[in-house]
């Protein structure tokens, strides 16, 4: 049984934008999947339907044998804490320290009052430091996040996701705001997480070359529909053109 199963998924936003039309695919445990496509294709919407940050209009999503579409508020919390999410703009609380931001990943496991007051166990703090150490951020633990570089902020974002003990990590354009150097560090860390810890990763990526290099599998979408679903080796130039339309020229520069 697949970890994630998406069938006949469609999303129409208020106002009539059809962001997704009849999307079907499944992801097995341990896979490293990239979703590529031009901006506005529906990549972010697709990712957000999985953890219900966006409510699908039609279709079904099951994650770890739970039907995501119709669960109550309490179970939604339980679902979300097992799915990490990483954002293009990192989405940290910039005025708090690195360690506090990392520990935010534990909030889903806490009673409301303990979370409100920011009370964490010794074990949780220990684990937070271990993760920071692994990501090369040990020295930064007590710095405020607004003092970090983009690449460091994204690593804090990864740490916040990891401390959730997730089965799945969703990454929405994780390297779109980073320079090539920092991008490589982030992608290597994510690949590591996938290989060492066996955490399934789904990526939205703009850059085809990065997707080709790192992923086991690529899903190409255009205008809310899946155009390609297969290994990177089988992704032809023609296919890239049909996924990206007129944007393709800028992307394939070799």
């Amino acid at each position, binding site marked *: 049984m697949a970890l994630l199963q998406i069938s006949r998924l469609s999303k129409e936003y208020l106002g009539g934008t059809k962001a997704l039309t009849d999307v079907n695919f499944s992801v097995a445990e341990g896979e490293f999947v990239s979703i590529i496509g031009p901006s506005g294709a529906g990549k972010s919407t697709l990712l957000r339907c999985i*953890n219900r940050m966006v409510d699908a209009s039609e279709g079904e999503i099951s994650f770890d044998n739970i039907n995501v579409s119709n669960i109550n508020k309490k179970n939604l*919390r339980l679902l979300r*804490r097992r799915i990490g999410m990483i954002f293009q703009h990192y989405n940290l*609380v*910039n005025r*708090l320290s690195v360690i506090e931001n990392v520990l935010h*990943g534990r*909030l889903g496991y806490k009673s409301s009052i303990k*979370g409100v007051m920011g009370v964490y166990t010794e074990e949780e703090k220990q684990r937070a430091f271990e993760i920071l150490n692994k990501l090369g951020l040990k020295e930064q633990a007590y710095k405020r996040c607004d003092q970090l570089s983009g690449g460091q902020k994204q690593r804090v974002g990864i740490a916040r996701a990891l401390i959730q003990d997730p089965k799945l990590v969703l990454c929405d354009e994780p390297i779109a705001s980073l320079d090539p150097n920092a991008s490589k560090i982030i992608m290597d860390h994510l690949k590591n997480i996938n290989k060492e810890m066996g955490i399934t990763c789904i990526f939205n990526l703009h850059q085809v070359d990065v997707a080709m290099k790192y992923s086991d599998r690529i899903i190409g979408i255009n205008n809310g529909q899946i155009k390609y679903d297969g290994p990177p080796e089988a992704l032809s130039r023609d296919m890239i053109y049909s996924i990206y339309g007129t944007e393709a020229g800028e992307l394939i520069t070799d």
Partner: protein
Amino acid sequence: MVKNEGLDIFAVRRRQFFIAGLIIAAITIVSTAITQYDPVKGITSVPKALWWMFRNFYPNANAFTRLPNILSKLHETFFLAVASTTTAAVLAFFFGLMGSKTTKVNDAMCKISRLVASVFRNIPDAVWAMIFLFSFGQNVLTGFFALFFVTFGVLARAFIETIDEASHASVEALQATGASYFQIVFQAVIPSSIPQVISWILYMIETNIRGATLIGILTGTGIGHLFLLYYRSLNYNTASLVVIAIIITVFVIEFISNYVRRLIL
């Protein structure tokens, strides 16, 4: 073709500018006619007014004997401004949470909060004071509630925007981790928006010290009322000391709040 459109835009701008100028001129002429305000006479009377002030409007030794009384009324007005601002801020923060797109609990509450804030903001404090004069009479409570409601309206609107701006991204991230509503408010919304929130509260305290002074004339309380008493009894020297005391207070408060702002922002 493209060039033509560009030129058109400049022509349209010039016309808009010209029309706006005409409208402003017309409004000015009509309103001076209605109020029988003569701008020429208004301007020529300025030197005369200055000369009168120079001769009468300065504190003398006698005025300084009233200083303890003045300071005590100044305290009263100052604390009225602070108390009404801080209590209004608490209520406004709650409405800010409800009215913000990021932290709203549902659409209905969001619309209602924004509407309530807008109503309270748009009725000036002097009008609130007149309304409360009926219920509380000439009383310090009247001033308190008048300032409280306007401040609430202004701050609720400001907080709605602050929360949306400062915490949208981190709220999204914390929602995705499975954090509960109150966890998100205390761990993301408050830490992200606290500098702007404090800055707005300081600004409203400054505004309300001025407001409290004027409202005091209406409600017969505080430093505003004291000024009126001295002024009516033709004790211009003491009245001038009251004015100087107010001006110094306003500047000191402004100085302190600018300092605090520099620290937190």
